[in-house]
């Protein structure tokens, strides 16, 4: 699946997007964040306070308990500050 990162999540991860293939046990958005966090120091820093990070699946806001099965594009980003 395709992952996208924005704002300081993007800066901490060090890339704007990537393709990943998480193991079968990773079922929810929250579990995906936990799996990403253990990849290396950069991901650990980006996701160290996972509660503040927002997620979207296929352009829709979702909560951390949302399932990732069938997702085409998952995005992680800080709380929004537009307007």
């Amino acid at each position, binding site marked *: 699946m395709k992952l996208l990162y*924005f704002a300081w999540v993007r800066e901490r991860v060090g890339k704007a997007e990537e393709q990943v293939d998480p193991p079968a046990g990773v079922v929810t958005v929250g579990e995906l964040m936990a799996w990403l966090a253990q990849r290396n120091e950069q991901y650990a820093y980006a996701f160290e306070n996972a509660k503040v990070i927002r997620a*979207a699946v296929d352009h829709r*806001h979702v909560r951390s308990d949302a399932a990732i099965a069938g997702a085409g594009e998952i995005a992680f980003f800080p709380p*929004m*500050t537009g307007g």
Partner: protein
Amino acid sequence: MISTIRLQGEAFDATAETEGMTRGRTDIGAVVTFTGLCRADENGKPIASLTLEHYSGMAEAEIARHVEEASARWPLLGVTVIHRYGRIIPGEGIVLVVTASSHREAAFAAASFLMDYLKTRAPFWKQVQTVAGTAWVDAKTADDLAAKRWSALPSRREAAK
């Protein structure tokens, strides 16, 4: 209901957008225009400019969903939302919301609703440039509270179920 949603790097002309919405129409009795401007300070500290990052694709979709929600709640005759991205300097417009209806109550309420949701749900992130460097702007609790007040009210669509 005619709606226009645009994301753009360049400046917008609020007067021209309003005139475009009402030209040739005799059913519109009220137009509310909100323009959000870039201030020269953030948290009391001077800034040189703002840079807005956005999630292309989702930003358009999310704004469209809120425009649809606004038109389900209030009898609107027109909605325009323009949001800029990229570098913006103090004094320039960041966001424009124009709402039109037969009467003022719907136009005022819908403009306020759309702005509250744009602040908290539209995927944009502000970064400020100052003499000390760059910094991401923190989300404000007051904006979350402003958006939450609308969730207590059922929409016309839900009320009709």
